[in-house]
């Protein structure tokens, strides 16, 4: 260790820089198993993102035929055979819970594979890096180019890179808005500059965020903006697979020649030759040999890099590998490592996933297509009529989630001689008021309920209003209070 130089006090505050220049990361090209997996997932993920809005799904007349559509104007969400109303937004809560717990389960099994393979930040950054490499070359060339003075060639390379970046970013925003309107129509409107203003605004916003986040901020997002690394660190344990440097095999580090000599002299020799390839390829610029850390998104690219080197020097591969702390510790003391993918934490996560997922599927499978809400008028709470009987008024909203118009009959059950008048009924059938509810809409009517004073007790009395579909047979019954003086 070198001794620090003698302290020299500052004399002028202007010398203190206001910002910390972030060391720029120049990830090197790498090939291998995990790189191939990442390319595969990138292609599949982006194909889904860009093409899904164009998938059609026939729902009959008057309804959109887009398989996945968030229709803000009509306040509906369509997902293939599912159509959700705003009041069913709790399904999204369920989805969020599922997403969180699945993330936890992934983490308990194999660490931050979400970060390394599936997170859009990682996927888009990967793509942007590929573009950067196309225009500016690999790691060394890029470092050299950034240091070089501005020449026509440098300008051309940089301009080309930023242009393609912006194009990709623009496509990203363009695909996003297609989820909120009929995609083919919107594409045509966008091309002829007739799309709604908000579409352009959102494309602009997403173009900017994609360009900035994937092109310029890259690993800064993972290091400084994303909460998951912090949460993940608290959730992981010694049995979770993580991208790990097997220090039991790697230390002490020495050159190939030294290691050979040491092995011949039966001295301890590590496999790590300190070539820094694992650092050079790392998209977040960390040194995995310092152990699991916040900056590591566990993409496995250092495994590919190290394997290439190990193959070259004729040592066994997987000096860096997906491994658990527990296994490495066991190997260090000469024991056989054991892996425990099934343990209390993974069982608990799986059970919660099964429970929440099961509840959601059950809800979805058994959800009603006829709904009713009943609102008791508060002012006046009750009205005395000329003959002394008491009337309460209710606002009834009927909900028709089917795609055809329905005839809904209202009936009432309550104290003796209860009578009902419906303002807004279109017809009667067997003396029952009938309300026509148009497809995929709601219909509000006012219901005036009159009960003779003699069959009422002071305070709350119970009535039941039942809505029944005349043809489909579906019914909803709601019990409500009827107030009397």
């Amino acid at each position: 260790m070198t001794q620090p130089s003698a302290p020299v006090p500052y004399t002028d505050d202007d010398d203190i820089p206001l910002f910390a220049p972030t060391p720029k990361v120049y990830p090197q090209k790498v090939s291998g198993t995990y790189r191939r997996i990442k390319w595969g997932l990138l292609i599949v993920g982006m194909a889904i993102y860009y093409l899904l809005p164009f998938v059609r799904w026939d729902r009959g007349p008057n309804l959109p035929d887009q398989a996945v559509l968030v229709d803000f104007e009509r306040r509906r969400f369509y997902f293939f055979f599912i159509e959700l109303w705003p009041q069913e937004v709790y399904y999204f809560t369920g989805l969020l819970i599922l997403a969180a717990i699945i993330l936890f389960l992934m983490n308990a099994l194999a660490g931050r594979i979400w970060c390394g393979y599936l997170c859009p930040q990682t996927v888009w950054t990967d793509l942007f890096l590929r573009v950067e490499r196309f225009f500016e070359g690999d790691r060394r060339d890029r470092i050299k180019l950034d240091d070089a003075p501005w020449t026509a060639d440098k300008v051309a390379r940089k301009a080309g890179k930023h242009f393609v970046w912006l194009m990709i970013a623009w496509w990203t925003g363009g695909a996003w808005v297609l989820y909120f309107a009929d995609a083919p129509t919107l594409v045509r409107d966008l091309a002829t500059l007739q799309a709604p203003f908000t579409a352009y605004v959102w494309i602009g916003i997403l173009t900017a965020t994609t360009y900035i986040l994937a092109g310029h901020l890259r690993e800064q997002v993972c290091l400084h903006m994303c909460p998951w690394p912090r949460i993940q660190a608290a959730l992981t344990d010694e049995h979770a697979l993580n991208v790990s440097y097997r220090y039991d095999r790697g230390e002490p580090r020495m050159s190939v020649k030294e290691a050979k000599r040491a092995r011949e002299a039966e001295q301890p020799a590590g496999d790590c030759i300190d070539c820094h390839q694992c650092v050079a390829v790392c998209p977040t610029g960390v040194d995995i040999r310092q152990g699991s850390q916040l900056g590591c998104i566990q993409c496995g690219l250092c495994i590919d890099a190290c394997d290439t080197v190990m193959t070259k020097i004729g040592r066994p591969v997987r000096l860096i590998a997906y491994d658990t702390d527990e296994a490495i510790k066991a190997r260090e003391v000469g024991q056989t490592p054991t892996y425990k993918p099934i343990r209390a934490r993974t069982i608990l996560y799986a059970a919660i996933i099964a429970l929440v997922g099961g509840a959601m599927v059950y809800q979805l499978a058994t959800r009603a297509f006829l709904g009713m809400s009943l609102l008791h008028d508060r002012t006046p709470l009750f009205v005395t009529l000329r003959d002394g009987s008491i009337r309460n008024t209710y606002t009834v909203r009927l909900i028709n989630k089917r795609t055809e118009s329905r005839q809904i009959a209202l009936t009432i059950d309550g104290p003796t001689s209860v009578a009902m008048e419906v303002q807004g009924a279109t017809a009667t059938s067997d003396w029952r008021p009938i309300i026509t509810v148009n497809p995929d809409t709601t219909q509000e009517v006012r219901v005036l309920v009159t009960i003779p004073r003699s069959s009422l007790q002071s305070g709350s009395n119970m009535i039941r209003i039942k809505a029944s579909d005349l043809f489909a047979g579906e019914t909803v019954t709601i019990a409500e209070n009827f107030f009397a003086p």
Partner: protein
Amino acid sequence: MADDKHTQPEVDRLTGIATTGHEWDGIKELNTPLPRWWLWTFYVTIVWAIGYMVVYPAIPLISSHTVGLLGYTNRAAVQVELAKLETQRNIQAAGLADASFEQIKANPDLNRIALARGKAAFGDNCMGCHGAGGMGFIGYPNLADDDWIWGGKPEQIQQTLLHGIRWEQSPDTRVGNMPAFGRTGMLKRDEIAESVEYVRSLAGLDVEKSANLAKGKEVFAANCASCHGDEGKGNQELGAPSLTDAIWLYGNSRAAMTEGLINGRGGAMPAWSGRLDPVTIKALTVYVGSLGGGQ
């Protein structure tokens, strides 16, 4: 040393981070500056704020404020929006103005517009006396029950709204008074008491055992029947309420009934013609009818 500005900064031995040179009680401050992107974002917000102050009204002065290059004010923006809304309302109102009450009732769209407009107008103009939802108070009729002093057909409600009740400024106002029988000496005290008991018997209310109902009936026939009818069923032409039902505008206690006979009754309702436009009055008519008592 003080003249050399470009000396190396002191480096903290433990962390390897440069210090700012500031020292308090031996504790040295490490120089961990802000990220560049953060700083630039901060500068951009400052520039944005300055631009905002130039373009929009921003600085309060003693009696006004700076106007800003765009000349934008929230109030003007609201006025524009309100004008737009009014234009749209007038389009809807056009349909309402020409339609009869039957046509409005038969047309769900017109009915919806009338009810919405009527509800808003009711809240602004009528609720003060008639209460929320037309629930009424002592002396101010409940509009949600099935009893109408001056008639509950749409045309009758509209007439009441247009010209008011006992509203002297309006020549077509509804007129009809309950005379102050006691105060003017038309009826003596015992006659008033007898007629109160008789009216109570008509309405099915409890009656004093000692009451002379025959005498009361005589007084009633001579003084009250001309307006309230021989059987006390009332007369909507004169605004004389039925005395046989369960609804009592001033309450059905002996005290309230006696007071009515002594001092008379005659609440007033303003004429809304001229204050509200005809379409609003029409909408109000439809809304009041929908409260529960419309005929």
